[in-house]
């Protein structure tokens, strides 16, 4: 059988059409080029396990991997798919599909894994691998590229403050603390331990409705502070950190700080924020400044921002002192910046929520003797406070205490005594006095044989005052007192709160003193 010239040409053309067609539509050709995909992967070297839920919420933008795919060839790259996998913790993610990346074009693919609950059970860092798989069409076949990266899942108490690689960090305060919003995951107002302790604080405050008014909020905040003082919470420097080459810290959950009785400034900040949030004061901030952290509470009515220097728990400071110290530090040092205010309310509402913490015995505060200590003070305080005022001063005192009054060597006086054993006495005297405040103090001190153990000076309006502490023995029992001397409008006022040392030791006297001192106010303050 012979083939005519015409048919031969048709056959050759047909073969050529098929060959060129295949080359045209598979993209490969010596004349045209082929798809070239450049793959660059950014990834987080550490996963913060306490905030493990955050990584699965794309709206929060805490991606674990960000893959940049760039077409550096001169034909489109088609049917690109990207998926990820964290060894031991996730399965391969559903591939993200891109129909086409044109020549010179690029796509950026991010990975937000839904991590399992078991991540929150890690007590120390665990190394693992992150895998990134990219597939695309090349010359009619599917090309597959797999890359792997080392990552570490941190223990549930560990935070690395920045996930920005050293070579990309701008070394600014926000860069070094770029993960700081994740601290909101440590704030646990619904933890039963936190709620119970917070309720005890609120009872100390007389059962205030914190979110109703500024006054009630401040009462609650003060009650919680007093509960912390009674518990004997102390501030400590971090004993054991871990070093990842980045600024990292072991951060306790509030329950740990309450039960251990100590914490760093960030632990105390998180604990206080959780305790007040448990009473409905949810608009709380964790304020980060260089080298330090402290909580801020926004009051419900005025919106006033109240900072609290929680590290003054160590010195047994009153709530007012803690606020005054924080305000002073803010005005003198920190307000100039840099600082990062982390709104717990906003971040938690956005999805930075705490992990599931292991259940504890429901009576854990009793087992540790914490509840009994606070309840004992509540019972001695005898419930509500009542206000006493005259032309010279006003003060609040425990309503159940026995009242007395009259005149003595100091002048006119009024006093209230703890009725059970007379182991605590609140006494205020006032008398016309011409002379300096120092003269007035010397005059009062000459009437007694007590040893002064400390003194501070201050000013309310035009009235100078001195706060002093004394110690002495009475009928074989050690006693201590805090006293305020005030000179105002030609009147000397002396407030003395005396208590047996055992009442100072168990926190009762301190709580009474805090309430008395913070409500004591002269009536003739002037400019």
């Amino acid at each position, binding site marked *: 059988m012979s083939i005519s*010239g015409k048919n031969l*040409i*048709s056959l050759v*053309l047909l073969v050529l*059409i098929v060959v*060129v067609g295949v*080359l*045209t539509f598979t993209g490969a*050709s010596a*004349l*045209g080029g082929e798809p070239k995909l450049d793959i660059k992967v950014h990834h987080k070297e550490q996963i913060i396990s306490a905030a493990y839920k955050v990584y699965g919420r794309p*709206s929060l*933008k805490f*991606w674990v991997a960000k893959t*940049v795919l760039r077409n550096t060839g001169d*034909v489109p790259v088609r049917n690109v798919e990207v998926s990820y996998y964290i060894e031991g913790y996730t399965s391969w993610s559903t591939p993200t599909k*891109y129909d086409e*990346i*044109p020549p*010179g*074009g*690029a*796509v*950026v693919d*991010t990975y937000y894994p839904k991590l399992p609950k078991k991540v929150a059970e890690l007590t120390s860092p665990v190394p693992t691998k992150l895998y990134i798989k990219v597939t695309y069409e090349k010359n009619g076949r599917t090309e597959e590229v797999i890359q792997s990266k080392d990552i570490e899942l941190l223990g549930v108490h560990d935070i690395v403050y920045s996930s920005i690689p050293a070579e990309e960090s*701008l070394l600014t305060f*926000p860069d070094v603390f770029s993960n700081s919003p994740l601290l909101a995951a440590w704030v646990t107002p619904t933890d039963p331990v936190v709620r119970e302790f917070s309720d005890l604080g609120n009872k100390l405050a007389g059962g205030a409705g914190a979110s109703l008014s500024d006054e009630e909020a401040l009462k609650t905040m003060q009650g919680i502070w007093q509960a912390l003082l009674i518990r004997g919470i102390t501030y400590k420097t*971090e004993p054991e950190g871990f070093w990842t*080459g*980045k*600024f990292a810290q072991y951060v306790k959950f509030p329950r740990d700080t309450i039960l251990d009785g100590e914490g760093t*400034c960030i632990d105390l900040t998180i604990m206080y924020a959780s305790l007040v949030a448990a009473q409905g004061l949810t608009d709380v901030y964790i304020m980060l400044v*260089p*080298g*330090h952290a402290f909580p801020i509470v926004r009051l419900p009515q005025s919106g006033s*921002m109240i*900072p609290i220097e929680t*590290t003054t728990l160590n010195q047994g*400071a009153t709530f*007012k*002192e803690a*606020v*005054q*110290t*924080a*305000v*002073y530090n803010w*005005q*003198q040092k920190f307000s100039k*910046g*840099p600082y*990062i*205010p982390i709104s717990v309310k906003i971040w938690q509402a956005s999805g930075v929520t705490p992990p599931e913490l292991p259940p504890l015995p429901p009576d854990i505060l009793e087992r540790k003797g914490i509840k009994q200590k606070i309840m004992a003070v509540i019972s001695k305080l005898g419930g509500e406070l009542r206000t006493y005022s005259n032309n010279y001063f006003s*003060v609040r005192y425990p309503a159940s205490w026995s009242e007395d009054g009259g005149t003595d060597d100091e002048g006119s006086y009024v006093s209230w005594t703890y009725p059970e054993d007379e182991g605590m006495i609140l006494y205020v005297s006032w008398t016309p006095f011409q002379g300096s405040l120092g003269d007035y103090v010397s005059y009062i001190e000459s009437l007694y044989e007590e040893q002064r153990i400390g003194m501070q*000076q*201050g000013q*309310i309006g035009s009235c100078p005052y001195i706060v002093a502490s004394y110690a002495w023995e009475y009928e074989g029992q050690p006693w201590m007192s805090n006293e305020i001397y005030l000179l105002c409008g030609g009147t000397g006022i002396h407030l003395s709160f005396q208590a047996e040392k055992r009442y100072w030791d168990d926190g009762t006297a301190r709580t009474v003193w805090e309430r008395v001192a*913070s*409500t004591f*106010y002269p009536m003739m303050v002037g400019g």
Partner: protein
Amino acid sequence: MAVKTRVMLLILALLISWTSLNVEAQPIALGQPIKGIELPIKLEIDDLLNMTVMENGLVKVDEVVKATATGYLTLKQQYPLPFLFKRFIEMDKTDVELENLTVNFDDANRRVTASYVALGMTAKRMDKWVFTMEGDAKLTTRAGNTLVFSKTLPMPMGGKKNMIITIHLPESASDISVTTEGGNTKIYYRLPSSGFGGNPILMGVLAILVILLILNLVLKEGLMGLPKMLRRGKS
């Protein structure tokens, strides 16, 4: 060790003293009312972005940031050097890669200008292109393929930036629609199909081959008879 890494470690060593700060205790406050603090920064910034979307999906951005005299001063305190300004620009571009960034401080006019190319703002999926903007932006104006959006973002240290974003889609873009999905603003559009997307030179060769095949089949003597026909046509 690289100099930058050493500087980083030095800064970290300073910051690691986190818990060692001695706070200054203040004397007792008596019955004075408790006063709070105010965060001093009430920064309000106008941020104008002009985005040109290219046919290959890359986005060329020109950005102008303006503020009042105080605001500009605060902004410069937070971002004292042009390279630090990168974080301001990236604030709402977490899923994007920036390239060729240039930043200039224009102190006389209290403004910062920046230009860069953004990768990853667009992608072609399910036969459509999608342009994604982080956050919920409000479409204020649309004229042809130009869309204008506005949105407000809080600043990390307090205050806010008011953004006006003008997006120029490619001239050939059609079937444009705007939606909000998962808290992000998305613009869908179509570009003329690149056909099967084959190599254009090869497609030309293919077309010639097909024409030749048709001629070969149609002509009585096939392509071999073509020269004869042409000669006949001349005479």
